[in-house]
């Protein structure tokens, strides 16, 4: 069996193949429709290309991990942590400002912005927690 050289392209290939299958299934069930036919062939071509790259060429992540040393990994880890912290502050700040603006001006747009930012913060928290649990168990 050929070894996967680019994991990202492999996953993209699977997703594109699933999209293509859905498009063709829609064509079969509801009769031929041009939009589903075009989307199906486009997704199929995308999937084929992704699978080709997945087995023939190393992805950016794979080629970078070959040429970095332990200090680069440490710096990447620290930068990631700091970037996440800054993003968190920005989101919280934005959410707080939007809520305050909604309180002052009573414009629904500010409430929408605040709710969206809160949803992003919550999603980010769930992702971080899941990743943390994964590494606690596997490292």
């Amino acid at each position, binding site marked *: 069996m050929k070894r996967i050289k680019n994991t990202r392209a492999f996953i993209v290939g699977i997703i594109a193949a699933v999209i293509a299958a859905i498009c063709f299934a829609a064509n079969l069930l509801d009769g031929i429709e041009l939009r589903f036919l075009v989307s199906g062939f486009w997704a199929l071509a995308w999937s084929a290309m992704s699978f080709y790259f997945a087995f023939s060429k190393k992805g950016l992540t794979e080629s970078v991990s070959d040429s970095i*040393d*332990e*200090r*680069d990994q*440490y710096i990447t880890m620290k930068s990631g942590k700091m970037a996440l912290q800054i993003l968190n502050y920005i989101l919280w700040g934005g959410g707080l400002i939007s809520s305050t603006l909604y309180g002052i001006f009573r414009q629904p747009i500010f409430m929408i912005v605040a709710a969206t930012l809160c949803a992003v913060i919550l999603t980010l928290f769930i992702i971080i927690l899941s990743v943390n649990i994964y590494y606690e168990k596997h490292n």
Partner: protein
Amino acid sequence: MKTKVKELRTRAKMTQQQLADLVHVSARTIISIEKEQYSPSLMLAYRLAEVFNTTVEDLCCLEENKKLEDERYEKN
């Protein structure tokens, strides 16, 4: 963490790049270790110790660093 890398490298008349090539890291990593900005991993410390024909304990001044760490711990 304090190490003897710079001292031993200078004594061995090696450049930072030469040492980096021997232990499979970048010259930037050697510079950071010498400036005490980065603590090498156990494996890198072992590789460096091998190059200079010494022990990890001696290269990384473990006794001295332990004392410093203990002092810091007691202060807190």
